[in-house]
């Protein structure tokens, strides 16, 4: 029997009109006075945009911060790889943008599955982020007058995206990293590189610390604090092949989940339409080609299935520009989920291109003819070079080949308006939380959300909670809650090393990824979900029995690092399937084949599913309980998305 859902989650959204809500709320929150802030210790795990900005800001405010990352340097966090840009409702181009429009677009883009109050706040602080980053020396693109340039990105009808060549994430992260290093130098942030969180420690219902493994010495160490912030990124690597960096994983969020934090909307994953298709079986990751390419590139496939000719030999009349055909208003700029699903449809129907017939063309011939080679080179030169390096083909003369890949995960730890999980004292920010993007994230909004959370939201909201703890000491690390957590990790490590198996961790990850991609990828259906729900436990059983982790626990041991992460991916994959199965509707990135319009578009069921699904851990081998947070839309009218 499925446990019955209970409406248990209180998002703690303040009362009052949305436009003034955050301003008013900031005034009504408790403050910690400046000299008391140093009495509080805060752990921030992760040094991506969210974690670095939060740790730096908390340090500036005077909190005693401990910052953790498994990288050798905070600057290497996955955020560094973001290419396209960051949204900000500055309306510099005077084209009708506003906080309200960004709010509206984000709620609509998320297919009405996000919490209005959080999204509005995000849109409000978006403007501060641009100011902050510029002041830090982030070299955003500028026009000839020396002012900041904007472009339209991923389906937006206004130009609100700020960018730094094709390296916006890098430059924003280096800004946040420099702010963090400034606090490290000032002594307010203690930095722990090459330290991986392996457990979250909870005492009497409140988060009181974490347990980490030093990746060089293998030492397992407890750390206590008054509050714990997880800024540990998304779980896109559950698919094995994704655009995420190799080390991205769900372990921190998952271990928090196992300690009581609810995991929300795990089935909301974003598949990015413009990635380079896989070229062989042992491919390690996929490379994103920036979405901005869709501004000038035209997407097509041969009209005939099993076309044998080279692209240049296929006459116009025998090409199907399927996005332009089906969506005349938005054409190649339809949102990511729509673009991805349509690519899958044409490839599945036998129109795929490239040696493995696993791609569609993104063609710049028309743009080059219109704007000239040099203009296109100036816009996309570095992306074209990157493509050429990987594929050996040049997009100046041969259309690019692209195919969707796992890219971003909207699901994550459930948080309230304060970005606190349901476990008091435990916060989740950035991609790690279930976030402001509903069932689908707009391009250039993840960088915005990470920095909004870290620079401008969490530093306020955390004080409201900490103020009540003034004078309370942290839980000492020799408390049984810590010692038993440490012992648990040591046990687990020993168990993996003594599993006398035959196959590598990567082998199992690849197999799991294939299952997840095939059944919980761009399109899902009941049969596939039920199938995968029986396949995953079978594969996990084999994994636990037959995985081979060589070496020892007290050195740098990359197989040992990976095995725990893959074990968590197994659990997560199962929850994703259950979440996808229970959500009997299509919305955003979650497309259930049973729920589509006659035109093949996602059909929501607002009556029954206008809610967040948040899952509660009940122990190993016991199914999680599904809780719901009802979503209400007072400021945006629900409509069926249409990009025709």
């Amino acid at each position, binding site marked *: 029997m499925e446990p019955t859902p209970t409406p248990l989650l209180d998002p703690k959204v303040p009362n009052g009109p949305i436009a003034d809500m955050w301003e008013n709320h900031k005034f009504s929150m408790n403050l910690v006075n400046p000299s008391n802030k140093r009495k509080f210790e805060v752990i921030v795990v992760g040094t991506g945009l969210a974690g670095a900005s939060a740790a730096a800001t908390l340090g500036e405010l005077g909190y005693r911060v401990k910052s953790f990352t498994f*990288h*050798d340097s905070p600057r290497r966090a996955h955020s560094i790889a973001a290419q396209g840009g960051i949204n900000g409702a500055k309306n510099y181009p005077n084209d009708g943008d506003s906080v309200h429009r960004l709010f509206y677009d984000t709620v609509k883009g998320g297919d009405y599955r996000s919490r209005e109050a959080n999204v509005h706040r995000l849109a409000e602080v978006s403007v501060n982020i641009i100011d902050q980053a*510029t002041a830090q020396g982030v070299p955003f693109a500028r026009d000839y007058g020396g002012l900041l340039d904007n472009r339209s990105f991923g389906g937006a009808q206004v130009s609100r995206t700020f960018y730094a060549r094709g390296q916006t994430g890098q430059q924003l992260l280096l800004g946040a990293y420099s702010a963090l290093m400034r606090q490290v*130098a000032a002594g307010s942030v203690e930095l722990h*590189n090459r330290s991986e969180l392996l457990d979250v420690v909870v005492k009497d219902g409140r988060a009181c610390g974490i347990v980490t493994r030093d990746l060089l010495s293998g030492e397992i160490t407890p750390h206590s604090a008054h509050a714990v912030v997880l800024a540990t990124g998304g779980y896109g690597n559950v698919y094995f092949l994704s655009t995420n*960096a190799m080390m991205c994983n769900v372990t921190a969020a998952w271990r928090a989940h196992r300690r009581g934090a609810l995991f929300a909307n795990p089935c909301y994953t974003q598949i990015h339409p413009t990635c380079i298709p896989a070229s062989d079986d*042992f*491919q390690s990751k996929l490379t994103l080609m920036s979405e901005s390419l869709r501004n000038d590139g035209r997407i097509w496939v041969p009209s005939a299935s099993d076309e044998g000719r080279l692209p240049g030999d296929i006459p116009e009349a025998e090409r199907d520009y399927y996005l332009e055909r089906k969506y005349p208003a938005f054409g190649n700029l339809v949102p990511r989920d729509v673009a991805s699903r349509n690519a899958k449809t044409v490839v599945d129907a036998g129109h795929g291109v490239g040696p493995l017939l696993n791609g569609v063309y993104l063609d710049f011939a028309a743009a080059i003819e219109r704007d000239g080679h040099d203009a296109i080179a100036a816009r996309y030169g570095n992306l074209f070079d990157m493509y050429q390096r990987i594929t050996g083909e040049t997009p100046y003369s041969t259309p690019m080949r692209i195919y969707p890949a796992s890219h971003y995960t909207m699901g994550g730890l459930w948080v309230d308006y304060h970005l606190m999980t349901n476990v008091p004292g435990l916060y989740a920010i950035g991609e790690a939380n279930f976030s402001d993007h509903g069932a689908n994230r707009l391009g250039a909004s993840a960088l915005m959300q990470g920095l909004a959370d870290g620079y401008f939201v969490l530093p306020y909201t955390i004080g409201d909670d900490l103020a009540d703890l003034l004078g309370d000491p942290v839980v000492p690390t020799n408390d049984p809650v810590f010692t038993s957590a440490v012992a648990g990790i040591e046990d687990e490590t020993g168990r993996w090393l003594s599993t006398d198996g035959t*196959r590598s961790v990567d082998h199992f990850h690849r197999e799991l990824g294939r299952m997840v991609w095939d059944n919980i990828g761009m399109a899902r259906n009941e049969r596939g979900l039920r199938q995968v729900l029986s396949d995953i436990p079978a594969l996990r059983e084999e994994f636990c029995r037959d995985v081979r982790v060589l070496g020892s626990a007290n050195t740098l041991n990359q197989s040992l690092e990976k095995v725990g992460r893959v074990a968590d991916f197994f659990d997560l994959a199962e929850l994703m399937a259950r979440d996808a199965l229970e959500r009997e509707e299509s919305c955003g990135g979650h497309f259930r084949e049973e729920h589509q319009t006659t035109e093949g578009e996602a059909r929501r069921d607002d009556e029954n599913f206008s809610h967040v699904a948040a899952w509660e851990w009940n122990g190993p081998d016991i199914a999680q309980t599904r809780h719901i947070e009802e979503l209400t839309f007072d400021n945006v009218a629900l409509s069926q998305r249409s990009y025709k």
Partner: protein
Amino acid sequence: MNDTISVTIKVWRQENPDAPGRFETHPQEITTDASFLEMLDLLNEQLNDRGEEPIVFESDCREGICGTCGLMINGRAHGPQKATATCQLHMREFEDGDEIVIEPFRAAGFPVIRDLAVDRSPLDHIIESGGFISVGSGAAPDANLTPVAREAAEKAFDAAACIGCGACVAACPNSAAQLFTSAKVGHMALLPQGQPERWSRTEAMVEVMESYFGSCTNHGECHEACPKEISLDFIAYLNRDYVKAKVKNRALSGQR
């Protein structure tokens, strides 16, 4: 084009920082479409299957932007292809029958941790000493208050593109970190936002740099190895600013 080549991998193995290292030789068959690191992934899978410990090497983004990867390949930091990080190198750069020698980045400032992984934390310490603009969250004025000439912004970007991989140090006969340091100093010195701390930043960063790394004698090997092609002009710029900084900082402290 999908060809398979046979190569001989000679790879550095070293148990821990204090252990003596040695080369290990493995034949490898690989398609030329594979990336260099995928070739190593495959080798590691084979080693693991045979019950031998996989080779430790680091990487993350595999897109040439995070700076985590970095190997000496046939004696060259990041290998034979110009402007290319190790993770972006593909096997089509090699020929059937090649011997490929793989070592960790070799530099006094970068001790070997294990096999091909090295400790590059001194680069963080250089940044910590001044590679920032002191602006607390919330203290920033409107972004368009200060126009920045496009050329200046572009030039600053050329420097800011550094990925902190340390190839410049590994390539330098003196293990100097001038290119890395000059990239950060140059990035900030070229922008109006970087002016207030320009002189103190320069002096502090150079001093920390010198405490870890050798001196620059203008070989230019760093630029050749740099995956982001950071220009040697930034080193000249750094040197000029450092001399000025010495004078100005003394003058400023005299005023106090």
